[in-house]
């Protein structure tokens, strides 16, 4: 049996995902590792296209058929057994059981992720009936209870609505209820607030955090928004072009960012109390193609601290603090922290 850290519920090790398309092979995820301690929350942050959503979908094996997945995704079952998710059939019985009882997902688009022609009650109770063996009547009662829990007013009436009859925020709440209905132990939220108004975003994020406490969930939050991460999670992994470039406890990352990309991200957040006329610093250049694998550090073309060695060889993961890791040639194993100019 595989070994994993005693406190973690999910361990992703050296995950690699490739898409074989007509146009060529897309290297979407190149050796990503992170672990989720039971009951804690992990944020995965990066620009669109960095592979964060693909990583999340790998955990539930919901990737399209063109995807090839390798590496290990270890999951600790309720009984303590460890299952390697990458070895399961994507739609086989074991994987479906894990989806139905263990790992739930919340999606980006609450409208399109719900069937437009089925009632809320139908869509929410479906998995409960299948996996918890409840009768229709019991399942309905449970659905109403859940809708009340996620703060949908008049849940007894709303339960018979169709998704298009709900507002955007209500739909996302319903989606959260649908994820919770299965009584999962891990919740993956894929950009849960991107499609929502700013005022609703905070409400939904608070709801997710409350639900995490209520259900004692382990949470994986996928987002491009560092602000959301700061507010929500315990640990964070920064992804760039299919790789985790830096990871560690959220406070450590914010106080002491090491990777030039992380620093770039921090600088490109507009500050609420910034001086008028102060410019937000964008990261120069564009994300390179994922069709060709990079020879050197994936970030080197845009990196302000680029050196000769950066164009050769993928940087190793280096521990730079307690639980704080970074993948950058500037930081060599065994070397102390180099004296770098703050970019």
């Amino acid at each position, binding site marked *: 049996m595989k070994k994993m850290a005693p406190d973690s519920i999910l361990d992703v090790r050296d995950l690699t995902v490739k898409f074989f398309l007509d146009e060529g092979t*897309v290297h979407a995820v190149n050796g990503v590792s992170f672990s989720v301690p039971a009951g804690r929350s992990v944020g995965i942050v990066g620009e669109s*296209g960095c592979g964060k*959503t693909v990583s999340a979908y790998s955990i539930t094996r919901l990737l399209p058929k063109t995807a090839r997945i390798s590496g290990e995704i270890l999951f600790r079952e309720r009984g303590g057994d460890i299952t390697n998710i990458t070895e399961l059939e994507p739609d086989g019985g074991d994987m479906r059981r894990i989806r139905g009882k263990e790992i739930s997902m919340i999606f980006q688009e609450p*409208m*399109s992720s719900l069937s437009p022609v089925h009632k809320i009650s139908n869509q929410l109770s479906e998995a409960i009936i299948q996996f918890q063996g409840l009768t229709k009547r019991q399942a309905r009662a449970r659905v109403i209870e859940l809708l009340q829990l996620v703060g949908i007013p008049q849940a007894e009436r709303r339960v018979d609505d169709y998704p*298009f009859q709900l507002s955007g925020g209500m739909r996302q709440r319903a989606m959260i209820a649908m994820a919770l209905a299965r009584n999962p132990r891990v919740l993956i939220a894929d950009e849960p607030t991107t499609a929502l108004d700013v005022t609703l975003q905070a409400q939904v994020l608070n709801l997710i955090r409350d639900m995490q406490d209520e259900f004692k969930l382990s949470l994986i939050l996928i987002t491009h928004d560092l602000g959301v991460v700061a507010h929500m999670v315990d640990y964070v992994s920064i992804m760039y072009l299919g790789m985790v470039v830096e990871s560690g406890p959220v406070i450590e990352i914010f106080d002491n960012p090491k990777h030039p990309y992380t620093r770039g991200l921090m600088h490109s957040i507009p500050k609420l109390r910034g001086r008028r006329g102060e410019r937000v610093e964008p990261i120069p250049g564009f994300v390179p*193609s994922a069709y060709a694998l990079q020879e050197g550090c994936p970030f080197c073309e845009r990196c302000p601290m680029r050196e000769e060695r950066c164009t050769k060889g993928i940087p190793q993961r280096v521990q730079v603090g307690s639980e704080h890791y970074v993948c950058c040639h500037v930081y060599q194993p065994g070397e102390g922290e180099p004296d770098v100019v703050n970019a």
Partner: protein
Amino acid sequence: MDPNQAAIHPELTEPEVLKDAEAKVFYATQWQLMWWKFRKHKAAMAALVIVVMMYLGAFFAPMIAPYRADERHRGYVYVPPQKIRFYDEQGFSLRPFVYPLRQEIDMETMQRHFIEDPTTRVPIHFFVRGSSYKLLGLFPADIHLFGAEDGKVFLFGTDDLGRDMFSRILFGGQISMSIGLVGVFLSLFLGLLFGGISGYYGGAVDNVIQRVIEVLRSFPTIPLWMALSAALPPDLSPIGVYMGITIILSLIGWTALGRQVRGKVLAIKNEDFVIAARLSGTSEPRIILSHLIPSFMSHIIASLTLAIPSMILAETSLSFLGIGLRPPVVSWGVMLQKAQNVHALMMAPWLLIPGIFVILYVLAFNFLGDGLRDAADPYGN
């Protein structure tokens, strides 16, 4: 319905990190993109080749056909298609040949039929002199692609009047395949005009045009076509009938296009680039011509391609029923009229060969249209 519903997680279906390909795509024109996409569609490419070949055949019909369309060959009524041979008991011959035919009467059934005479060969020559014609209507010529100098050659047999089916199919193609094109262009004109007006101005105009379209569409097409073509004066010249039928076909054909154009105009009317043009003082006709039409032209072309088959099917059906084109005009439908009863069919099943060309043509256009429709959406997928 939420427009976002169509949007899928881009990272899943097609990781949107296709930067290299994108760089090329950014600078390509719309037509280049369509061509790249179209090329990948093998069936559509094959269809394109077939369509081009069929049109070339019709274009050069007088040259390719060994005989004139109305040329009767005495004593050669209901000749079955002849086999082209390279080899027989007398050995191999590089020059293809056919056997001459001899008519016999079956004493039992009292039916005439042809038997081949294998003792002599009728060689087929290429670029032979035959009946004179004007190539492209301009240059007098009498060279035919192939022919039998001392005998007859009927690749697809002959009809009840002893006319060469192969030649007639080529000439018939000129009529049948042009009626689709002309009809579609008329429909395009009407569809763009009314659909454009309907979508662009909206309101009461839109309402009236939409009702008219609805009424026209609720007539079953064939009975309506029947009625309209019955209204063509019987003493109309062949060209008149041809034009009349074309107009009748497009009178109904434009409605589908009209609806589509209206939908596109409605969708595009409020796009940012059109609003920007309007804000910067561009005149309305200019907005329509230089902004609206180009932005949905590719879709229109794809739908046009898919509309051509229905035109030719309609022409063929009408002519077949005897209310479309009439002899002496040769079209595939007119030719098929000869196959209308079982007895003729039993005696000369090759009378159905023009139908095979209709099917081939329609099939090719369907594949072509399918490929174009996919290609018309170059950024999709």
